[in-house]
């Protein structure tokens, strides 16, 4: 209980360097896999671990790997998704910046399991300095024989490259990412075919999140069964949570899945409670795309059970009373937060980031932003709330990729749980002026 797997060496000085990383047991999973295991055996361990994708969708990784098509004579690719652009999420940057070799090691072990001889880490352009850190780690791995031809004297060869993006949230969606990696605009592809059949350059491809790939290292080292002992139910293992907003201790926390939400928010081990002694109002638990929940529903499910930090518990009650673990971007809001203004902020984000392929998303996100702006400008009408509801419902499920859903869900949830706040702004526009929308920075210093 409480054992760290990914961040266990985070405190060790110099762990960014190859020598220190290696001295602390680094690259053992590559040795074990390449020297003593078949590729199928590695996939089997990942299946046994119950690991689920850490990028947001939570799809079982072992299953995804076993879907990879293996036509003879055709290259297969592993692509790591380091686009990390979901608002509220910063765990992948933390991991790559502080323990870069863990990702490189995970990429080698995973590429071996999938039979990929060329792999790419697609990283968002703004993380240019992190890309440099990864490239240095890759150079060290080549120099020490972990990459290149005939790794550890085996038949297995692998080349690994960092690919830089250039600013586009949509490129985190796996098929948009592949388009971008091919040197094109980040327009998502229609599925099927899934990347497992026709991905990068039309070849079978697995796309996995940074954290997912890093988790393969302890899974191979200790065995899938050992990993599956951590966590609760189908939420096995540990999860990196990016905690931010109005809390005393923002940061990245590696938790055992299943920690109670209340403990996570209020314990000094984690967020350390709400800053400035304020009351706690709401949480967006898994990155900006997941439904916002008011304090009572995030602490306890509608059935009155304590809510846990797990895929199942956070989703308990469906969208009526629950939410999602998503990417683990945990944004906490205090009593002074304007839910309507926060929603406008999110909606502006989705409008800005829509790739524009599908009309419901391209137009709808803009309409929602404008209507929210109108309400905040003091010109809203009661029918605007219904209009917002109507538009979000006409985006959800009607687009090529899930960005449409991601834009619709926050709107639906804000209306569902905080309708009275919208109504108050519309009935009494003066109240908008009184709302403290954000901390004034000068006050923040004295807080």
């Amino acid at each position, binding site marked *: 209980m409480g054992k760290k797997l990914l961040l266990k060496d985070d405190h060790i000085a110099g762990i*960014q360097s190859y020598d220190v990383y290696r001295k602390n047991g680094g690259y053992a999973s590559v040795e074990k896999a390449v020297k003593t295991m078949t590729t199928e055996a590695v996939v089997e361990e990942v299946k046994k671990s119950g690991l689920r994708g850490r990028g947001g969708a939570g799809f079982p990784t072992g299953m995804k790997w076993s879907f990879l098509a293996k036509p003879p004579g055709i*290259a297969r690719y592993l692509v790591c998704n380091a686009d*990390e*652009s*979901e*608002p*509220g*999420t*910063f765990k*992948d*940057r933390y991991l790559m*910046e*502080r323990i870069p070799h863990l990702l490189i090691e995970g990429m080698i072990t995973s590429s071996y399991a999938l039979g990929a001889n*060329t792999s790419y880490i697609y990283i*968002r*352009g*703004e993380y*240019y*300095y992190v890309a*440099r850190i990864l490239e240095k780690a890759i150079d060290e791995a080549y120099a020490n024989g972990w990459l290149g031809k005939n790794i550890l004297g085996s038949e297995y060869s692998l080349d690994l*490259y960092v*690919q*830089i*993006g*250039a*600013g*586009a949230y949509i490129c985190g969606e796996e098929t948009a990412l592949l388009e*971008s990696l*091919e*040197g*094109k*605009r*980040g327009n998502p592809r229609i599925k099927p075919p899934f990347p497992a059949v026709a991905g990068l*350059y039309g070849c079978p491809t697995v796309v996995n999140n940074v954290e997912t790939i890093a988790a393969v290292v302890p899974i191979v080292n200790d065995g899938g069964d050992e990993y599956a002992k951590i966590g609760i139910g189908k939420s096995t293992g540990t999860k990196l949570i*990016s*905690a*931010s*907003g109005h809390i005393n201790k*923002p940061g*990245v926390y590696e938790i055992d899945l299943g920690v109670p939400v209340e403990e996570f928010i209020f314990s000094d081990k984690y967020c350390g409670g709400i800053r400035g002694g304020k009351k706690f109002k709401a949480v*967006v638990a898994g990155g*900006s795309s997941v439904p916002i929940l008011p304090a009572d529903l995030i602490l306890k499910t509608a059935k009155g059970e304590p809510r846990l930090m797990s895929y199942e518990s956070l989703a308990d009650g469906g969208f009526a009373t629950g939410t999602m673990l998503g990417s683990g*971007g945990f*944004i906490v809001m205090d009593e002074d*937060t304007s839910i309507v203004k*926060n929603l406008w*902020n*999110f909606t502006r*984000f989705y409008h*800005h*980031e829509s*790739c524009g392929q599908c009309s419901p998303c391209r137009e709808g996100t803009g309409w929602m932003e404008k209507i929210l702006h109108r309400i905040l400008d003091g010109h809203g009408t009661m029918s605007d709330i219904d209009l917002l509801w109507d538009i979000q419902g006409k985006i959800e499920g009607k687009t090529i990729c899930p960005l449409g859903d991601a834009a619709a869900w926050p709107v639906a949830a804000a209306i569902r749980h905080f309708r009275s706040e919208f109504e108050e702004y519309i009935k009494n526009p003066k109240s908008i002026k009184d709302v403290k*929308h*954000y*901390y*004034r*920075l*000068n006050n*923040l*210093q004295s807080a």
Partner: protein
Amino acid sequence: MKDIRFSEESMALVQRMMKRYPEGKHKSALIPILHIAQAEFDGWLSPEVMNYVASVMNIQSIEVYEVASFYSMFNLKPVGKCLIEVCRTSSCWLLGAEDVIRHLEKKLNIKVGETSSDGMFTLKSVECLGSCGTAPMLQVGADYYENLNLEKVDALVSRLKSEGKRKTYTDLPEPRTL
């Protein structure tokens, strides 16, 4: 108009980049190469620069335009030496991003999207930069400036002004304490 041509060093890097992909797939190098071009040619991608990149990569100019216009980090208009990009999304907004933006607007005497009259600064507000736990934050070139307050913003602007150097994403980053 000065001659548009990569330095020898950049050209070598560009050639290496195109070899990272399977035979015939070198178009994959377009985005990384555009970053190099933007850094080398005054921080933005003029039509001439994009045409040049197309010729170096042996692809159509339109293939370069359509990519350059999709991604927010590529500037299709001239920018100041230092592009200040303030995160305006969720956690940064909750913790005072609007204050940072208003403060910079006043201090630099420009609005978001504009360039100061001395050509030193362009102010931009951008979406979440993956640094929400250290909000509010902003980016200049390769560097993240986190846990901001107005004094830190002032100190940064003064320093950038006195250094007077162009900042690009491809710069070597300043040392960070982890």
